[in-house]
């Protein structure tokens, strides 16, 4: 899922500072699961904002809506009738949802309520960590299911660097060296031969380096 976390209240207050009435839109997908932008977080943030305004002697009205997803036209359409009543929209979706909202509603400013962090997993209740950077060319098949692009600080493709000490990364003692993990796992799978195979220079054009990306399925296009 996409993992996000709420922006500092102060920043959101800054977005809303000249508003009288804002529309706060949550998303019932990833950001709900990572406790950043679901129905509950919308309610908490709305209450916090209203209070912060009240404290300064200003009034703020907040309309709370949580959509099924903010990355699909149809769901975003659900708020069309009420958007114009508001001075601004605060979207608690990931960056994708915020942008799509802004693309759709051109006359109302759209502000992000969360910082979108990464694509990751729930390690345990309340702990999320990164697993994928969407490089567009998956090599997990060669690396025992552990991604050196997202989990090695240097994105090395053929083994650890000299900074790998006792299985930990040199940038942070709490961070596992991804290549140590890969080697240990390959060993356990009795597939160390895979490690011997050189992974060729990566074609980064499928990643961000090649500019914004697009996926098209002709058979599905209407």
């Amino acid at each position, binding site marked *: 899922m996409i993992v996000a976390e709420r922006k500092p*209240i*102060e920043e959101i*207050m800054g977005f809303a500072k000249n508003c009288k009435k804002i529309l706060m839109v949550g998303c019932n997908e990833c950001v709900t699961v990572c406790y950043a932008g679901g129905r509950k977080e919308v*309610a*908490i943030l709305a*209450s916090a904002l209203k*209070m*912060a305004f*009240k*404290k300064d002697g200003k009034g703020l009205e907040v309309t709370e809506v949580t959509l099924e997803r903010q990355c699909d036209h149809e769901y975003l359409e659900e708020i069309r009738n009420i958007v114009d009543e508001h001075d601004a929209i605060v979207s608690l979706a990931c960056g994708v949802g915020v942008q799509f909202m802004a693309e759709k509603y051109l006359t109302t400013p759209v502000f992000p309520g969360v910082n979108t962090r990464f694509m990751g997993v729930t390690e345990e209740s309340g702990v999320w960590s990164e697993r994928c950077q969407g490089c567009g060319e998956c090599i997990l098949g060669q690396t025992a299911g552990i991604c050196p692009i997202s989990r090695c600080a240097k994105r090395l493709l053929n083994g650890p660097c000299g900074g790998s000490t006792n299985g930990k990364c040199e940038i942070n003692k709490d961070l596992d060296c991804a290549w140590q993990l890969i080697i240990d796992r390959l060993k356990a799978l009795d597939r160390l031969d895979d490690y011997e195979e050189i992974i060729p220079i990566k074609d980064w054009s499928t990643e961000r380096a090649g500019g914004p990306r697009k996926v098209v399925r002709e058979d599905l296009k209407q």
Partner: protein
Amino acid sequence: MRLSYPDSIRIIRLPCTGKIDVIHIMEAFEKGADGVYVAGCLEGECHFIKGNLRARKRVEYTKKLLDDIGVGGERLEMYNIAASDGPRFAAVAREMHGKITALGPSPIKKSL
């Protein structure tokens, strides 16, 4: 035990403090409460195993949030009081009342 405590306190009943929602606490402050405290069972004695531990974490989270918006996290507290411990219940009520009195009215209420 009929031990007196300040009459500024109103009690809202929950089946377990584990049911307390950040939203409930926020609502109380938004509507002008000067202080809120959550009174749960002693740690390790929750009838529902861990409700009071969850409540404490939520209270801690909400305190930070209240600090962020300038209401002041010190207006919110979590206490653990044994159900039979009337004296402590009254003592906590006095403590909280004293603390909130010292802090003065909530900045939200002032501007209401």
